[in-house]
């Protein structure tokens, strides 16, 4: 098992949770996002400054068609999500007991279950990317890249933060050497300017 991420030895047991109406319909985020995109297209199309020289059909026709498509699909998708929600069952990891069968209920029938998300890990990964972007110009590629590597590894479950610091710096330096010195890409030097 060395090298493979160690996970706690667990068995998966389908557990019916008395979930709320909205929990099974988080998929509404997608039509919501499309609604925002569609409205932005509508506002942008209406307020667009069209040059007098433009010939018909002008620059507004195609975006208007796209906006209509996005809005119509958003409504249909919202109806679909509302009518066919995800399963109420989620799996909760429990200490292993030998002989347990995955994903089966007492009759041996497969249980449909709703995917769950690890929000802490997701936010950790997202936060790392945001910090990387903010730090890239002031700190430079070498340090910001190391932060990116370290943070993503940590968010994905690395257990060795100190070792990771050295690994991250090594990876970041190799990239700097290979792409900046080797291929001539222009990476921001940041506070380490002059050393490289």
């Amino acid at each position, binding site marked *: 098992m060395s*090298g*493979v991420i160690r*996970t706690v030895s667990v068995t998966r047991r389908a557990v019916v949770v008395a979930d709320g109406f909205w929990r099974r319909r988080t*998929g509404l985020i*997608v039509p919501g996002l*499309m609604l925002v*995109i569609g409205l*932005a*297209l509508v506002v*942008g199309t209406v307020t667009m*400054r069209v*040059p007098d*020289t*433009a*010939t*018909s*059909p002008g*620059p507004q026709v*195609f*975006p208007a068609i*796209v*906006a209509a*498509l*996005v809005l119509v*699909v*958003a409504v249909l*998708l919202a109806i679909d999500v509302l009518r066919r929600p995800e399963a109420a069952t989620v799996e909760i*990891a429990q200490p292993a007991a030998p002989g347990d069968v995955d994903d089966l209920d007492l009759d041996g029938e*497969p249980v449909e279950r709703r*995917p769950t*998300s*690890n*929000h802490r*890990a*997701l936010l950790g*990964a997202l936060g790392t*990317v*945001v910090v990387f*972007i903010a730090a*890239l*110009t002031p700190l430079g590629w070498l340090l910001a*890249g190391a932060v*990116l*590597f370290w943070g*993503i*590894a*940590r*968010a*994905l*479950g*690395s257990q060795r933060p100190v070792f990771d610091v050295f*690994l991250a710096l090594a*990876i970041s330096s190799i*990239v700097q050497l290979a*792409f900046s010195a080797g*291929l*001539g*890409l*222009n*990476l921001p030097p940041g506070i380490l300017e002059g050393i490289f």
Partner: protein
Amino acid sequence: MESLANLGDGFLTVLTPINMLWVLIGAVLGTAVGVLPGLGSAMAVALLLPVTFSLDPIGAFIMFAGVLFGGLFGDSISGILMNTPGNSTAIAGTIEGHKMATSGRAAQALATSAIGAFIGGIIASVLVVFFAPRLAELATLFGPAEYLALAVFAFVAISAVVTESVLRGLAALGIGLAISVVGIDGISGASRFTAGVPELFDGIDIVVITVGLLALGEVFSVAAKRGTPDETPLVPSRGRLWLSRREFRLAAPAWLRGTAIGIPFGIIPVGGAEVPTFLAYGTERRLDARRKDSMFGRGAIQGVAGPEAAGNATAGTAMGALLALGLPTSATAAILLAAFRQYGLQPGPLLFERAPDLVWALLASFFVGMVVLLILNLPFAPLWAKLLKVPRHYLYAGISVFAMLGVYATSAKILDLVLVTVIGLIGFLMRRYGLPVAPMLIAIILGPLAETEFRRAMAVSESDPAILVSSPISVTLYVVLLLAVAGAAFQKIRSRRTVAQAIADRQRETV
């Protein structure tokens, strides 16, 4: 025979030591990215696109050929070993391939897949060499209305035919089209949806979109799955590598049948190799059911051989369609089209006249790429499996670093890094809620083309929409589209039944 002479010239261009090095590096990197769970051939091409900009066009495209076929093989490796096919085109081969792997025949499954990919790819490429120039001549008959019909064809085909839920396919298509209209309108010069930000005047770069959607979206998705039951387990590979004579006899006809099924699908743009791979799977299953000791459900070698050959045959002829018509029929082809544009080249009928040396060099490098891959992968297939022993968090941390590097390297704009993050989040949402990625990529690539041709056609006819259906070619395209949608709906129901049958069989065994 003119084609052969041209191809010979292409080989002369390609077979230099430095180009061989590029194709080798491309094949290794492509396979390496393709092997990673969740990342497929499309991602391999997208991730390496910025890196190749420092090469000359011929070197870059030769490297691409290696990356593409390496990535396709990598898709199958991760599917067979981990049951996580890197691309939807590898799903059909994974069904039996993963069963072979779990019964200790992983190496044979990989070898079957590699040889199948080689046979399908080579035969398809030979056909492309002889027929792509004819296809290009045919394409000169196309005017604005016909190109619009082709683009609509590709949109509908990829959103409706390929995906599980038509609604979700159309949703992805709509989001992609919305992104594609950002920037200065090329015809009138009006600035659209840029909010006055000068960095957006050129539109959102395709590298930003692909890297965000495929790489960062996958990193976020893996993070969100950590510790939940959806985490994918890893299966070690063991056993002997070479096929026995009996296995070879079983696989050989399946390779050829798969190739025959796959080839026509690359030319008609019905969007990727999902349909032919499942058709090949269904065919093999039905043929095998006549035998007394049917191996299907227990790791049948034909179930790997057929779909793998079909998948690569489609990929091969799809490249022909891309070169001759300028029409991408898969996500990977769409990214390749973007690469052509970065070098100021527009694939399509004129490409054969304007840059023949490049086209033939690219076709020649397909052959070289496939031979290199076979040499590289047949003996080393078990070694690739070792890549999966790198801890997952380090793998994805490395992918994040390279994704950000790739985006920053193409533009040196911080705004692009912000955009890639936003698109990465959209990519995560799409994965979580079952929206396919391919329609969005096709929309971003073909959206501007559809708009330009639409406006040209309308300008010619002075806003009379009848011009859109006035030529026999466009009418035929729309009719074929309707037939294809109807046929695919029928075929999908059948192949879904086949898959449901396979799943039911498996459950019967485990219970």
